[in-house]
C-alpha cells in the first residue's frame, strides 16, 4: 500500500475501512479508546494470548535503555512499556507516559501506582502530531500500537524527531503485514471473525474491535513505514518482523 493510500487525501482520512473527514477521525479514535480503556489490558492479553508482553519486552531490548535516561512512551495508554522502562532508568532517569486519551491515561496511572512505580514517571495528555516538549529532550521514544490511530502520521514522526536528542532512537511497535500467505489467511479469519466476537463477549463492544482489525489492515506495511521514518529525518532505520510479521518493530536514530 502506498503512503498516499493509507494517509487519505488532504481533507479525508481512514477510520478503519471507512473514509472520514480528518477532524472527525480524532474524535472517533477518542471514542474507541474511551470505550475500551477499562477492559484494555484484559483484552490485550486475551487477543494476543499474552504475546504482546513479549513484543514489548523485545522493544525494551532494542531500546538499549540505560539507568538515568529520559524516555517518552508515546500513545502509552495503560503504561506497559512505561513500567518496564521505569524500573530500568531508575531514580536518576525519567519516563513520560503521553497519550491523547484521558481515560487510557487514568487507567495507566492507577495501574502504575498499584505496581509501586511512582517516583520517576510523569503523565502528559498530548497529541503525537504536536508534542508539547522542547527540542532534543529524550534519549528514547517508543510508540507501541499507537501510530496507526494517529491521523497525520508524517506530522507525528516529524514531531518525534524534533523532541528526540541527537543520538537518541525511536522505536515504533505496530501491527504490520504477515510475511507468509498462509499466516495472512489465518490472521484475516482471526481478526475479522473472532476478534469482534471476543470484543462483544468480553467488553460488550464489537465495533471498537472491528475498528482495530480494519485499522491494522490500513496501516502502512514494513517498508512503507521505514520510508516514512526516513522522510521524517531518521537515520539507520531498520525493522524486525515479530511473529511472522503480524507485528513489526521499526527503529531509527536521530544523528
Amino acid at each position, binding site marked *: 500500500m502506498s503512503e498516499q493510500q493509507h494517509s487519505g487525501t488532504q481533507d479525508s482520512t481512514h477510520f478503519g475501512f471507512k473514509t472520514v473527514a480528518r477532524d472527525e477521525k480524532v474524535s472517533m479514535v477518542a471514542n474507541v479508546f474511551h470505550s475500551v480503556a477499562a477492559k484494555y489490558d484484559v483484552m490485550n492479553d486475551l487477543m494476543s494470548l499474552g*504475546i504482546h*508482553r*513479549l*513484543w514489548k*519486552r*523485545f522493544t*525494551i*531490548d*532494542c531500546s*538499549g*535503555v*540505560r*539507568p*538515568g535516561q529520559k524516555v517518552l512512551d508515546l500513545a502509552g495508554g495503560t503504561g506497559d512499556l512505561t513500567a518496564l522502562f521505569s*524500573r*530500568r532508568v*531508575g*531514580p*536518576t532517569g525519567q519516563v513520560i507516559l503521553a497519550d491523547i486519551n484521558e481515560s487510557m491515561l487514568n487507567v495507566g496511572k492507577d495501574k502504575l501506582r498499584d505496581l*509501586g512505580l511512582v517516583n520517576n514517571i510523569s503523565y502528559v495528555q498530548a497529541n503525537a502530531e504536536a508534542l508539547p516538549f522542547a527540542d532534543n529532550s529524550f534519549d528514547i521514544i517508543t510508540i507501541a500500537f499507537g501510530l496507526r490511530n494517529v491521523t497525520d502520521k508524517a506530522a507525528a514522526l516529524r514531531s518525534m524527531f524534533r523532541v528526540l536528542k541527537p543520538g537518541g532512537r525511536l522505536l515504533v511497535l505496530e501491527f504490520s503485514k504477515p510475511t507468509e500467505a498462509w499466516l495472512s489467511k489465518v490472521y484475516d479469519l482471526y481478526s475479522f471473525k473472532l476478534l469482534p466476537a471476543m470484543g462483544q463477549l468480553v467488553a460488550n463492544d464489537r465495533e471498537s474491535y472491528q475498528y482495530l482489525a480494519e485499522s491494522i489492515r490500513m496501516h502502512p506495511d514494513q517498508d512503507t513505514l521505514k520510508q516514512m521514518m526516513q522522510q521524517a529525518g531518521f537515520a539507520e532505520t531498520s525493522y*524486525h518482523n*515479530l*511473529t*511472522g510479521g503480524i507485528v513489526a518493530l521499526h527503529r531509527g536514530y536521530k544523528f
Partner: protein
Amino acid sequence: MLKLLLPGLLCTVAEKVLNPVVGMDPDAQSRLNRLQGKQFAVRLRGIPLRLVCTAQQNGIWLNSHDEPVDCSISADLSALRQLSDPSQLTRLIREDKLQIDGDLQTLQQFSQFFQQLNPDWQERLSVYLGDAAAYKIAGGIQLLQRRVQQSLQQTEQSCRELAQDELRLTPVAAEVQQFSNDVSAVAARTELLQRQLAGMLPQSQAFV
C-alpha cells in the same frame, strides 16, 4: 517465528523468580543500593544470548541486547562458577576461559551480590503456612541447598579426574609443565640455529 522473542521470555521468567528471592533477603537492599544504576552483561560461550542485568533499588532487571554496559564478560559455563573466587580470575583469563571488558569492580560487586543472597525462606513461608511448618520446610530447603552444592562439587571433581586420569583427555598440571618446558627448549634451540644460520650467510655470499 518466535526465536526473537525467546530471550524476552527467559528474562521475564528469570525476573519473576529472582526478584522475590531478593525481596526475601533482609540484607539485599543495602547491597543493591551500592550497585544501583550499574549494568553488567554475561555472554555464555556457545549460547547466542547476552544477558544484561540492571541493578536498581527495587530489584535486578534483565534484558538481552548488545549495547555497552559498565562491565561485560564472556565465559565458559565452568568459568562462570569460579568467578566468585577473585584469585581465579587471572588464571581463567590466561586460559581464555573468561574475557572481561569494562569495570572489574562492577563484576566483583555483582558476583558478591549473588553469592551473598541469603533469602529468609522461613520468614516468608510462615506467613502462609504458620511457624512450625515453615521451620521444617526452610530446614529442608537448606539441607537441599547443601546437598546440591556438595554433589555439584563432587561431580566437578569426578569429571576432572575422569578427563585427566581415566580418559586422559586433559593433561594434569605436571604434564602441562613438562610440555611447556619442552616448548621452551625447542624455541631456544630454534633461536640458536637461526643465529648460526645468520652467521653462515655472509660467508656463503662470499662464495657466490
